């Protein structure tokens, strides 16, 4: 590894553009009239170390070009993901592959094949985001650290060629007597403008706002913290997004809490607006019909003793609460929101009727969640349930149930009456009654049904929010730091009665030049010239 020795005696690492000590140009290719001051000409991302695979990976991610490319690719791909709906937002009854092909043709087929149907959860999209994160970390490390070192160890004494090739520059001859005065006057004015002064003989460096240079890196730290926050979502305990349907009167464990918390749903309420609320509503209500004012679940929260799945824990009441939309029940980092509801059959009432006379010999009310086998109506009348199908359908000619939920209850009844002691069979569902063994004397007539509300609640916990907020805040601090402060430096050098002055800023050259003009004005020194304009003019002339 060859190192570069500058004529000032300083030994620079390989890849250095400007001598770390005196600022002399080391890279012979750097022969432009104005120096490229980016990263202070340090040997960044030492492209020279390319031997091992680690270095190769490092150098790949260290490239700003690669970083920008990754961001652009991600933007384009994210946009493509919005052309067709994502799979998770569709309630598909056919496989996604077929859906995309049939609905959108060959393009849909390609779309599906490339994984765009579930873009934001796909492996390659996640890897793309991860690469941006890696690029962010490595780019920042590879630039911030050398820049920090370079700025920390800068010396006031610079090579004349360094000053001459700064964008703002002036030189003049001074007499011995004036020289000291001018130098001191200049220094005083710089201090008044809040510059920090470093001196070495007749060399001077005035600097302010160095802190602005860290803006972009602070900014990146903010982004990295946000990425860490997003990553923590997949760590158990940081993020919960669960869902529960809970029936009125039911007590259930709250999902996502490891059986530590239980909830009782006492009542679910829907309230609608009426004219008494406000005269002005009258017209709207006439046009629209009922308008819902409030969805509410009245609940009690319990802390549960440790228990196994299926075991009843001991419950300690924590609080009663009325969950309304946007008024979640909160505890221990969890929030429980009112999301939806459903109304289901709770019980059905049938009357045992003699067909000829329409006389009813008693009623049975069947709790659909726990029907009894035998309902005794007295006086020798009795109804037995032979089978119960909560979600009835015929499959292959046989009665069966689609699920355990009472969506479409059906019963096989055996009706025992004083005159039919062996009982008559009747299959009764909501739509129809079947009498499998011929015409019966009695039948079960449907007399009514009770319903019960279920509250649909979501259980959320997000312990990453404060991390995202912190990251966002740091990001903004970085933006402010880099935007509203400027890193301005002025070098002054006197050699053999020749007075050199040069200035550099990282942004807002106009403001900088105005400031220098004020400093120089009346010192007998010439105003500094913006050499970039001069060289541009030269180019134009040439």
């Amino acid at each position, binding site marked *: *590894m060859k190192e570069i020795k500058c004529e000032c005696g300083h030994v620079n690492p390989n890849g250095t553009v400007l001598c770390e000590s005196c600022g002399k140009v080391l890279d012979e290719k750097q022969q432009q009239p104005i120096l490229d001051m980016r990263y202070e000409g340090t040997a960044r991302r030492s492209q020279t170390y390319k031997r091992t695979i680690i270095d190769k990976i490092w150098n790949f991610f260290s490239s700003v070009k690669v970083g920008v490319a990754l961001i652009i690719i991600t933007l384009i791909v994210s946009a493509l993901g919005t052309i067709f709906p994502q799979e998770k937002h569709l309630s598909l009854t056919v496989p996604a592959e077929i859906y995309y092909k049939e609905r959108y043709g060959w393009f849909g087929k390609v779309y599906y094949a490339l994984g765009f149907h579930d873009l934001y959860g796909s492996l390659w999209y996640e890897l793309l985001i991860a690469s941006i994160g890696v690029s962010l970390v490595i780019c920042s490390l590879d630039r911030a650290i050398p820049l920090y070192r370079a700025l920390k160890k800068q010396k006031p004494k610079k090579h004349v060629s360094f000053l001459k090739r700064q964008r703002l520059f002036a030189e003049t001859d001074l007499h011995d007597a004036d020289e000291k005065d001018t130098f001191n006057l200049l220094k005083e004015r710089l201090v008044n403008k809040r510059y920090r002064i470093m001196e070495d003989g007749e060399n001077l460096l005035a600097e302010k706002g160095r802190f602005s240079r860290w803006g972009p890196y602070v900014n990146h730290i903010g982004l990295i913290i946000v990425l860490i926050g997003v990553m923590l979502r997949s760590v158990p305990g940081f993020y919960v997004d669960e869902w529960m349907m809970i029936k009125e009167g039911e007590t259930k464990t709250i999902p996502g809490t490891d059986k530590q918390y239980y909830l009782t749903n006492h009542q679910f309420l829907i309230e609608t607006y009426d004219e008494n609320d406000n005269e002005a509503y009258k017209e709207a209500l006439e046009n629209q019909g009922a308008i819902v004012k409030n969805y509410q679940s009245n609940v009690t929260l319990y802390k549960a003793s440790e228990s196994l799945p299926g075991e009843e824990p001991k419950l300690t009441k924590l609080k009663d609460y009325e969950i309304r939309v946007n008024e979640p029940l909160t505890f221990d980092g969890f929030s429980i929101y009112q999301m939806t509801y459903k109304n289901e059959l709770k019980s059905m009432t049938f009357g045992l009727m003699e067909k000829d006379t329409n006389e009813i010999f008693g009623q049975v009310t069947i709790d659909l969640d726990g029907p009894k086998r035998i309902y005794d109506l007295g006086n020798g009348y009795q109804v037995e349930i032979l089978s119960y199908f909560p979600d009835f359908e015929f499959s292959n000619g046989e009665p069966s149930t689609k699920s355990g939920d009472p969506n479409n209850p059906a019963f096989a009844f055996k009706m025992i009456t004083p005159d039919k002691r062996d009982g008559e069979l009747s299959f009764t569902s909501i739509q129809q009654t079947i009498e499998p063994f011929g015409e019966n004397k009695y039948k079960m007539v449907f007399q009514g049904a009770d319903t019960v509300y279920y509250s649909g609640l979501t259980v959320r916990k997000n312990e990453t929010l404060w991390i995202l907020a912190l990251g966002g805040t740091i990001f903004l601090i970085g933006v402010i730091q880099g935007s509203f402060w400027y890193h301005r430096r002025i070098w002054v050098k006197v050699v053999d009665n020749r007075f050199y002055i040069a200035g550099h800023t990282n942004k807002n050259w106009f403001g900088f030049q105005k400031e220098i003009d004020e400093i120089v004005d009346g010192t007998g020194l010439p105003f500094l010239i913006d050499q970039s304009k001069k060289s541009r003019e030269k180019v134009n002339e040439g």
Partner: protein
Amino acid sequence: MEKKRRRFIQRTIILFVLAMAIIYTVYTNLMKDERKIAQVGETAPDFMLEDMDGNMIRLSDYRGKGVFLNFWGTFCKPCEEEMPYIDRQYQIYKDQGVEVIAVNVGETDLAIETFAKRLSLSIPIVVDRKGEVQEAYGIFPLPATFLIDSNGKIIHYFDREMDEQTVKDFMERIKP
């Protein structure tokens, strides 16, 4: 050279940490939809459920025996098909240290009794009314069968319908 070595080590460590973070995140995100709990090789999550006669059955009480843990519902056709096989094989293997626990997914007593009577089942049936055991085992879809050895370890998970030979082979595997 010392400097170069240090740089190499620094870079390796940083890249390693980044790689680990990414692998972890991507892995957990991709596994989100998979069953993560009650996997083969793990100790079977203990539970307590009531059987049809009101007795409490606790899984860990069966240590020393092989447990054939089956989740079912009366509405599940394949469950109906395989139930008689399980029942028949249970009669053979129960004297050889194999226990069957048939966990109903929380239906009404009437539905379960009717079903058990129709198929003349004699295997112990328990009811998971609140779905907590199904959650602990990550059950979906039905039927689902876990083979638990005499040390309480899950040695196999099967989520399709079984024929009688399969049931027999399974019981043979968990025989202590």
